[in-house]
Each structure stands twice: as C-alpha cells, then as structure tokens.
C-alpha cells in the first residue's frame, strides 16, 4: 500500500537542514537556487535518468509543507520505499548508512575505558568526506588495526551532521572490508 504523508504538523517540524544532510548522504547534489526561497537538488540514476527536488531554504514559507511533502514523495520513488519509512528516518535525525572507508586518524584513547574517537574517510553521497565516530571495545581495536595496516573497513551506522561535520553514531557490524581488492 502506498501511504502519502500529509500530516502538516509532522512535515512542518522537519528542518531544511535535516533534509540537506539526508540528500547529501543519499547521493543528491545542489544544482542551483530557484528564485529566492529554494534550492534545486538533483540526483542521477543510471536506469531512470535525473530526479529533482525543490528544497525550501526556511520553514516559514507559505508552501513549505507542500514542498516537503513533494520531496518525500520523490524520495519514496527514487528509493522504492514508503513515504512513512523515509519520514521516520528523517525525523529520527540520523540516516542508517553502510559506510565503506579507511581510518584516517585515531585520537588519544580514553584512559578509563577501551574507547576513543576515530576519524574515518569514506564516501557520503558522491564525495569523500571526513566522518567522526566514537568506538568502543572490539570495534575500537579493529579500527586501530585497520589504521596500522591501512586496511579499509565497512560498518553500519546513523549518519548526521553536527557543527558542520559528519558524525556516525551507533556504529555496528564493523569489519575489515575484504571486497576492496577483488
């Protein structure tokens, strides 16, 4: 069943910033501004051609809710998912992604527990990005080993943007990425 999201309050509570992070994380890019209040985002799909989203710049626009509804409608088509799924992911703030990349930097480990902050270099959308994450226990050891041996890793996590930087939270299934040299 296709459910169309028309919950005004729900759509209103979504900030343009949340959608921007989502779009970047899913391979969309900013194309050009549209008049004064919106930005045109594009995504190329090999089979289906080009998709377009008109993203408002601020929430106080008369047609904000309509435009956000349309954006979610387009995302549902592009990702072959329901609008409800996409909306709940947007509202939860972090998008679950599979990140493939290398460990770029290991901060000084925390002294009390086996944990620390790690900077990864991975592809977000269509660009290589620095992504900060906190790892603990076995995942942390694996990251140190990956760093020493210059071996790529792969993991699942929720991507969000904090103070202009990408942050990966709730990291799981972290492992060496064996697929990179095949």
């Amino acid at each position, binding site marked *: 069943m296709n459910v169309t999201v028309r919950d005004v309050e729900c759509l209103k509570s979504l900030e343009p910033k949340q959608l921007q992070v989502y779009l970047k994380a899913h391979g969309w890019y900013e194309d050009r*501004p*549209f*008049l004064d*209040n919106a930005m045109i985002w594009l995504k190329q799909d090999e089979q289906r051609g080009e998709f377009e989203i*008109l993203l408002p710049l601020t929430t106080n*626009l*008369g*047609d*904000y809710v309509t*435009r956000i509804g349309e954006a979610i409608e387009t995302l549902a088509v592009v990702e072959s998912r329901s609008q409800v799924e996409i909306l709940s992911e947007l509202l939860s703030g972090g998008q679950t992604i599979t990140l493939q990349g290398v460990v770029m930097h290991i901060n000084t480990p925390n002294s009390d527990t086996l944990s620390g902050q790690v900077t990864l270099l991975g592809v977000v959308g269509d660009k290589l990005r620095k992504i900060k994450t906190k790892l603990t226990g076995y995942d942390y050891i694996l990251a140190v080993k990956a760093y020493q041996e210059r071996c790529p890793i792969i993991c699942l996590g929720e991507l969000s943007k904090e103070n202009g930087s990408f942050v990966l939270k709730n990291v799981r299934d972290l492992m060496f990425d064996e697929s990179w040299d095949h």
Partner: protein
Amino acid sequence: MELQLKSTSRDVLDDNQLRYPLKIKNYNDLRLPDFVIPRILVVLVLPENLTDWLQHSEEELCMRYCAYWISLRGMPDTKNTATVTVSLPRSHQFTVSALQSMMQRLSQGVLL
C-alpha cells in the same frame, strides 16, 4: 509556477480590465510574498450560454472566450470578509506565448 484557476460568465470586462470578485481565502493564498513557487490567478471568461462554450468542426476546436492572468504577490491585506474584487488587465491574456515568457522569466530568477 502554481495557478489558481477560476471561470466566470458574468459581464466582468470593461475597456481596460476584467474585474473579478475573488474569495478571501484565495486572495490570501495568492498575495503572500513568501512562497517557494510563485502563484498566479487565471480567470477564464465564458459565454453565458453553455452551448456557446465550445464549437467542434473538422477545421477547428473553438473555445470561447479567453483567460487572463495576474500575480497578486505583495497585494495588501484586506478587511473584507467574503470577497475582494481584483483587476486583471485585458493586456494580460493567458496565451501560450505569455505562459512561455513567464516560465522563461522564472527560470532566470525574475519574479512575476
């Protein structure tokens, strides 16, 4: 671009303009400046008699009369409670070339 479409068969034309009583809700939906997509009002003027609206033949499909457009963006608030009479210049005919020129201007970032 988003369009509010209306039609009327009343005698609304004078020498220079068409005067159309627009519902307050429509007026407010069209006059506020902050929209992502610009909005215009399009009013189609029809003959009084239903049978005169369309004429089919092998030569032509003729629709009477024509439509006019206006942007109400930035118009003042009103104390009216039911309708506001808006004026659409007769020079603003809603033709294919008028529509093309509007789309062109918008794509260049110029508001209507």
